[in-house]
């Protein structure tokens, strides 16, 4: 790992092949992958990744991935749902205001069995449901959004060998845009991490 971490400022990666996406190293077991991933992390790479058929326990730590902010954002989305439901029910059932929401709409103060217009307990179920609905929709869309998906094409799909990533093979990918990337040295580095194979992936 020391070979790549020293003096990498002089030769940019582009000089070694403009259309190159990166290098992939193939592993057979989660244990081998984790051992290799720790070394890639310690070598100081930034633009690299592990690709696996299922989430491997302990790999996040071995790669040094920071915990996602997703749950915090989902909390606020859920609270938005609560407020939307409260405002919707109060406006439509307990007021006679007019307001413009694409068209002019007016509330209708329903008087049911002499109950108060602002009957909050009766509004709770719908507030609960919309909280869940907004949270779930935001979980789904933010998770795929942060992951940059849907993205139907990716350079990694060029590799025939990489197709087994959704079956039974584990890969380390180091991208050519990483400042520490040099085709020869990085390839030698990956080969020193006991992979089954190392392959160049074109962009």
């Amino acid at each position, binding site marked *: 790992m020391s070979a790549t971490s020293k003096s990498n400022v002089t030769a940019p990666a582009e000089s070694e092949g403009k259309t190159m996406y990166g290098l992939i190293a193939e592993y057979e077991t989660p244990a081998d992958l984790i051992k290799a991933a720790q070394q890639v992390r310690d070598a100081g790479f930034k633009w690299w990744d592990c*690709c696996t058929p299922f989430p*491997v*326990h302990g790999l996040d730590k071995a790669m040094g991935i920071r915990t996602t902010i997703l749950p915090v954002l989902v909390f606020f989305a859920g609270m938005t749902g609560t407020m939307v439901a409260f405002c919707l029910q109060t406006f439509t059932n307990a007021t006679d205001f007019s307001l413009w929401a694409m068209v002019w709409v007016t509330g209708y103060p*329903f008087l049911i069995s002499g109950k108060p217009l602002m009957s909050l307990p009766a509004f709770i179920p719908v507030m609960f449901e919309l909280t869940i609905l907004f949270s*779930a929709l935001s979980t789904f869309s933010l998770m795929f959004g942060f992951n940059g998906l849907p993205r139907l094409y990716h350079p990694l799909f060029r590799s025939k060998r990489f197709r087994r990533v959704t079956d039974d093979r584990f890969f380390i990918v180091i991208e050519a845009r990483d400042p520490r990337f040099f085709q020869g040295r990085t390839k030698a580095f990956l080969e020193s991490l006991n992979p089954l194979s190392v392959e160049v992936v074109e962009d």
Partner: protein
Amino acid sequence: MTSIPLDPRSGSGKVTDNTASDPGHREPLVLNMDRFSQVTQQVCQVAEARRTPMAWYIVFAFSLGCLGLLGFCVLYLILTGVGVWGLNNPVMWAFDITNFVFWVGIGHAGTLISAILFLFRQKWRTGINRFAEAMTIFAVICAGLFPGIHVGRVWVVYWLFPLPNQMEMWPQFRSPLLWDVFAVGTYFTVSLLFWYTGMVPDLATLRDRAKGKIQQIAYGAFALGWRGSNRHWHRYERAYLLLAALSTPLVLSVHSVVSFDFATSQLPGWHTTIFPPYFVAGAIFSGFAMVVTLAVPAREMFGLKDLITIRHLDNMNKIILVTGCMVGYAYAMEFFIAWYSGAIYEKFAFLNRAFGQYWWAYLLMVSCNVITPQLFWFKAIRTSIPIMFVLSLLVNVGMWFERFVIIVSSLANDFLPSSWDVFVPTWVDIGTLVGSFGLFMVLFLLFCRFIPMIAIAEIKAVMPQADPHYHDHHGSSDHDEEHGESEEAKS
């Protein structure tokens, strides 16, 4: 215990029984397989097979026929009016709402398996969660049909939603019937998202294995370009946990809200506070019976016995036993409270339920829902495929009749004897019920044929080989991650 040795018996012939409950030895959840690729192959071969099993075609043709019957009955209803059903003045809800409650209830087992068992780290759920969730979605589709058509004037069904309209009127948000619209709508949406999120990595597996252009494009589009990146898996796992945590209170709320339709009314027999927990227990009870009904033939037809093992079925039968006891308790408690309340109408409603004009329905309900599941105390019965299949069918019948008894017997004999009447279903009632099973089965069979019906990635993750420590038997690991696996499935 950091690693689980391969089952010593696997070398000598096929293992079929993994139901032992010895705390010192963890029984495998996946039988006769020690490589990830075997799991992939076993599940994908169903969707990839060039020939569809003959049995599939036979069942599909029959289901399609039932779906046609549904279409005809619904069209006839819309063109004529709800008078084509056997409804009369006191009995204004009958088969329509019975079917609605029945189908919504069926869905609950799928969410219980996918969300609640996930939160409790019950790893055996991975074998059955995909098709149990599919069952949920198709059951909610069937359920959603009935309120839609029983409103009578289907063309104004948009009045259910708070949309600006020409009358300048809004839905009445203090009504449980409107809460139902939101509860069932949210339930369907969240179940669909949960199901699809779990399926994306498996669709990517099918995409990467696809030989033909059409398969590549179809699976490729729905796989959203998933490439197994661990940076993606990190957010994915967090999102999956969030969806499970959101679905858990949701599923408990949905049948509670459905029960409010009855519990908030004044009618004796409906006006009881026990309804929400009682409905939820009954929903899980009937849903698990439906999962067993579907799992038993599916694992036979598609050769998935090593993934949906006897242990899975055994566990589900235990849940049927537990929820069956809860339902039996609720039936008894209803009678006790009716007596204890001292209200003559309450007392009458329950005596009438058991001994009145619908005594046969009540007897059917009690024998199917209370007596039948008690047989599951015996392990020989819990692990016998034919017996559990028959018992699961009986439970489904019993739970349909439970809703029928609650709805029809309470309505038919209310406060005033002069307004009593008898509900007799017409052929349209029965045709719509049969047809809804056709709709359900058509969707389910299409799912089995074209979509990975077992969660491939999740199964791999619970195999002992997925543990990074699996290969170092001497415990000489050079990294310090903790492995929270001690509380694995014990049930």
